[in-house]
């Protein structure tokens, strides 16, 4: 059973993040007086460290059913409810961990930019928004924190406003993503019009009654899927992503690609799976078909890119395809189990969700690492063209080594984290055991192999080839940039060799989503 806690206890990580974000401009003012360049960065990093400590402490004391919390006298089903269970904790730990490492990296990476206090304010707000999305127990809270996250990421994408590219990409991202949130809001309005509440658990009770009109429910599912799917960059709503990622500073690309699109996937999973039980509604097929289209289209596009960050951006879309595929397998297997009673389908469904969560983790770490390493290459070599970066990994051995491990992990090489998650996903797909899922999983397997082609090409050009003319003179990046990269690299290797504790965590999280005690 869920344990009721005080609202301040539940909001602690967000309060710390927002307090640090509000104080950062003051530090920035002092920084200006002292002619220092690193004060606001160090301050923000301390903020992330405190939050991370609080989150780990919360995880240690998490009861089996999680925490719930609401304002006294204004509780569910109408008021704000916060719900922190194993799934939320899994996501929060990921958000705060990657946020902390990106903040360390930014201290050195962003030192040549001006307006750093604004940058760190927005970075802290971005993570606060994502943590809020993860702990929301109703649509009201989810939407407010969702918009906090979105607004912070629009401003961060167009942070270098003296160049044309960030402005243009930022405007495109803003228009598309705002339209997406408004479509999701329309879905939320329809849910409210039917049920009169926005609380997830109250809605799930109302929509599990047999009297509901399935057509109405499918309209709502479509609106929510499309609305959050724009930010999750599901093809055909992905077109903002390959422009926004190269235009943003590399640290922000790592945040966007590693975390923001994962927060969108979380929002889809949490709202759709909790409210519309997959055993009753059959949306698994839609998710699987979307996943295959996403992975295939993005793979073909990624193969054609010469810009390193654009290639990595398309590869993010491919991996979103894999995560959505895991969710699709989970929903499809659950529906098959409910209609035919095949026990194997139930097992496959749980493994699919575990695989999706593990892929969220391994892709967040791996893609974060790749964007940070690519940013470090780009700062030194002053170019984003892959063929001008020939052999840059040899000139910067530590960055190059972590870049290679990141690429190999995303390609699914054992014994790295990417292998574990892709293995779980494909195993889940094949264990459902009907013709449609066998064909779909085979297509995903082909996509996975196809993706390896451009990962290995990137590895060959950037690391294995001898140094090209343009990178002859460049040296290794400074220690502050290398430390987060090496930490992420070690995380990939450790998770790959010893994934059991994390698979355990993911399993608990998957069970909370299916409401299995």
């Amino acid at each position, binding site marked *: 059973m869920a344990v009721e806690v005080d609202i301040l206890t539940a909001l602690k990580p967000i309060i710390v993040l927002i307090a640090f974000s509000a104080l950062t401009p003051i530090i920035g003012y002092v920084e200006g007086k002292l002619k220092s360049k690193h004060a606001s960065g160090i301050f923000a990093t301390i903020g992330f460290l405190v939050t991370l400590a609080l989150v780990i402490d919360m995880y240690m004391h998490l009861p089996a059913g999680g925490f719930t919390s609401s304002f006294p006298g204004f509780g569910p089903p109408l008021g704000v409810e916060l719900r922190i269970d194993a799934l939320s904790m899994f996501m929060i730990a990921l958000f705060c961990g990657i946020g902390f490492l990106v903040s360390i990296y930014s201290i050195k990476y962003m030192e040549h930019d001006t307006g750093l206090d604004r940058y760190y304010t927005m970075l802290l707000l971005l993570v606060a928004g994502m943590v809020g999305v993860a702990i929301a127990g109703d649509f009201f809270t989810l939407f407010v924190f969702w918009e906090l996250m979105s607004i912070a990421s629009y401003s961060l994408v167009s942070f270098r406003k003296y160049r044309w590219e960030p402005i243009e990409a930022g*405007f495109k991202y803003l*228009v598309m993503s705002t339209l997406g949130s408004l479509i999701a809001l329309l879905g939320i309005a*329809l849910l409210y019009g039917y049920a009169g509440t926005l609380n997830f658990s109250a809605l799930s009770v109302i929509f599990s009654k047999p009297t509901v009109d399935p057509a109405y429910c499918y309209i709502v599912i479509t609106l929510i899927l499309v609305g959050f799917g724009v930010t999750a960059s599901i093809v055909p709503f992905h077109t903002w992503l390959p422009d926004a990622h190269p235009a943003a500073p590399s640290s922000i690309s790592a945040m966007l690609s590693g975390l923001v699109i994962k927060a969108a996937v979380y929002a889809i999973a949490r709202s759709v799976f909790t409210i519309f039980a997959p055993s009753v509604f059959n949306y698994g097929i839609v998710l699987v078909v979307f996943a295959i289209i996403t992975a295939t289209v993005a793979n073909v596009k990624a193969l054609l890119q010469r810009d390193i960050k654009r290639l990595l951006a398309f590869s993010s879309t491919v991996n979103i395809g894999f995560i959505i595929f895991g969710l699709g397998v989970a929903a499809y297997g659950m529906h098959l189990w409910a209609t035919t009673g095949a026990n194997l389908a139930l097992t496959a469904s749980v493994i699919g969700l575990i695989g999706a969560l593990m892929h969220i983790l391994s892709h967040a770490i791996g893609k974060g690492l790749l964007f940070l390493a690519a940013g470090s290459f780009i700062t030194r070599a002053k170019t984003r063209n892959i063929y001008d970066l020939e052999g840059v990994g040899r000139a910067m051995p530590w960055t190059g080594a972590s870049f290679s491990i990141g690429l190999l992990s995303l390609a699914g090489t054992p014994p790295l984290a990417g292998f574990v998650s892709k293995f779980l996903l494909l195993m889940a797909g094949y264990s459902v055991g009907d013709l449609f899922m066998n064909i779909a999983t085979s297509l995903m397997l082909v996509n996975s192999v196809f993706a390896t082609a451009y990962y290995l090409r990137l590895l060959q050009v950037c690391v294995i080839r001898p140094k090209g003319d343009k990178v002859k003179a460049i040296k290794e990046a400074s220690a502050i940039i290398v430390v987060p990269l090496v930490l992420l690299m070690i995380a990939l290797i450790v998770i790959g060799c010893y994934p059991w504790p994390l698979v355990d965590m993911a399993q608990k999280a998957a069970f909370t989503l299916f409401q299995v005690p």
Partner: protein
Amino acid sequence: MEVLPPQAYFATSIILLVIGIYCIVSKRNMIKTVIGIEIITMAVNMVFLSLGWMRTYPAQLIDPLAQAFVIISIVIGGAIAAVALSLVTNAYRHYKTLDLKKLRRLRW
């Protein structure tokens, strides 16, 4: 005083939604795009309110949850408009035009 039923408000908001989408799709001026986003925001807010009223219709009151949500949504819409307009200002500084067709250096 005669009051229109909530269905009338719902129909108006759907018309507004269509107008907003038309505005975003067809207009080339960046500021008009932002206006289109705002029209859609207002349309969705009105859908929310009218659906809230439909639940209690013969009574002349709306569930406060819908009102609270819409107030927050209006505030968020304002914040988004502010960010969007600041991007428009910066785009104007770079291009000396607000024509979206001229902003095609990215491969859209």
